C-alpha cells in the first residue's frame, strides 16, 4: 500500500471513530491536520486570533458532522480543507472589525505557537508538487484561481476586479483547473 493510500485509510478510520463519539480520534485527527487547516485559514482571514477561532470551529464541525461524512464525495483531507476554506471565507465576509491582512505570513511574529512545526514527508511532498504545478500555470490562469479560492470572489467579481470579460475569466478558471488536475492527478 502506498503512503497516500495508507494515510487515506487512517483518516477514514479516524472519521469512523469520531462518528462513534471517540474523542481520542478527534484528538488524533486534529494533531494530524491542524497545521494544514490553520495555514489555509490564516492565509484567508489574515490574522491569528480569527484564524484560531475559525480553526477550532472547523474541527468542531468535523466532529459534529463525522456521522454524515460520505467517502464517495472525496478524501477526508479534501473534506476538511473544504470546510476550512468555507468557514474562513464566511469569517472574512461577516467580520466587521478591521484587521490588517498580512502580505507575507512567513514574516509574521505572533503569539507562541505561530511558527510551523516539522511536517511529515508526505505533506512536504504534496506541498512541493503543488508549488511546482502552480509555477507551470500561466499567470492569467493562476490569478483568477487564487482570487476565487483564497479571496472568495465570484467569477463576476473577478471579471470586474481584473477588467476582463466574464467569459474569459470563466474559461481561464476552467483551463487552469484542468491543468492542475492533470499535474496533480497522482495526489487526487
Amino acid at each position: 500500500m502506498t503512503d497516500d493510500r495508507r494515510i487515506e485509510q487512517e483518516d477514514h478510520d479516524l472519521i469512523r471513530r469520531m462518528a462513534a463519539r471517540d474523542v481520542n480520534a478527534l484528538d488524533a485527527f486534529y494533531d494530524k491536520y491542524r497545521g494544514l487547516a490553520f495555514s489555509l485559514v490564516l492565509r484567508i482571514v489574515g490574522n491569528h486570533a480569527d484564524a484560531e477561532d475559525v480553526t477550532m470551529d472547523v474541527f468542531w464541525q468535523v466532529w459534529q458532522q463525522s456521522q454524515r461524512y460520505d467517502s464517495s464525495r472525496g478524501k477526508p483531507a479534501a473534506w476538511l480543507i473544504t470546510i476550512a476554506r468555507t468557514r474562513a471565507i464566511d469569517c472574512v465576509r461577516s467580520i466587521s472589525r478591521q484587521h490588517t491582512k498580512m502580505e507575507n505570513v512567513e514574516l509574521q511574529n505572533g503569539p507562541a505557537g505561530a511558527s510551523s512545526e516539522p511536517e511529515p514527508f508526505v505533506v512536504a511532498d504534496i506541498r512541493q508538487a503543488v508549488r511546482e504545478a502552480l509555477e507551470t500555470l500561466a499567470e492569467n490562469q493562476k490569478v483568477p484561481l487564487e482570487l476565487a479560492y483564497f479571496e472568495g470572489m465570484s467569477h463576476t467579481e473577478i471579471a470586474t476586479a481584473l477588467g476582463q470579460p466574464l467569459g474569459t475569466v470563466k474559461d481561464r478558471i476552467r483551463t487552469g483547473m484542468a491543468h492542475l488536475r492533470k499535474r496533480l492527478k497522482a495526489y487526487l
Partner: protein
Amino acid sequence: MRHLQLTDELQEQASLYAVGALSERETADYVRHLETDQCEVCRAAAMELQGAASLLAYSVAPATPSPSVKARLMEQARQSVPAERPQPALRRPGWFEWVAGAVAVGALAALFLVVQDNRALRRREDELTSRISQLEVQLVQQRGLIATVTAPQNRVIDLAGQGTNVGARARIFWDQPGMNWVFFVRDLPQAPNGSVYQLWFVPKAGMPVSAKVFNTESNGLYQLDIPLPGGLNDLKAAAVTIEPEPGQLQPTCPFALLGAGE
C-alpha cells in the same frame, strides 16, 4: 436533469464550483443539481475538481495554531459525549422480566412452528406443481387425441362383443390418409390369468396381422393410438381375440370383439 457526458460548459461550471467562484445562488442551484438530480457526470467532475482545488491549501506557508485551540476543542468535545452509565448490579429478575422471558420463549416456539409449517407447505406445493405438470401433459395428449378422432377424413369401425364378452364395445377411428388407428375399448373385463387380448388388422387379402397385445384396466377400459403397417390400408375387418401369453403370430382363439372394416 442528468447529463450524459461532460461538455466544456459542464466542466467550466464544475471548476467554478470547485474553487468557490460561483455566486451564492449559482452554488445553491449547482448543489441542487448534484444532490437532487443526482447527475453522476457532474458529481464525478465536481468531486475530482474539488480534490484538485483542495490541494491549493498546500501552496500556502505552513503555520501552527497555539495549544489553546486544541484545549478548547477537546474540552467541548468531551462535554458533548454522554458519560457512560454505571452497570447495574446483578439482581433477581422481577415478575416483568419473567413475563417478558416467557413471551420471548413463546414467540420462538411460534416461529419454529411457522417454519415447520412453511416446510410442509413447500413440500405440498412441490407435489402439486409436479401433479399439475403431469396433468398438463395428459391434457395436451387428450387434446391431440380429440383432434385426431374428430378429423373429417376419419372412418369409424365399431366392434361388437362376442361370446361371453357380448357386453363389450370398441370403436376405431381410422385415419386412412394418415394410416393410423385410434382404438377405444369399454366394458371388456380383464383377460384371465395367463391370457392376453390381441388386436388384429384383418386385410382383404392375406392373413391377419398382429397390431397390439394388451389388457384392459380393471374398469374395462383401454385406449390405443397405433400406426398401420405400410401397405395395409385396405382392410376387411378389425378383431380382438383372447390368446395365451405373450400373444400369437396368428389368431388361435375365439373373438372377443369383431368389426367390419367396410
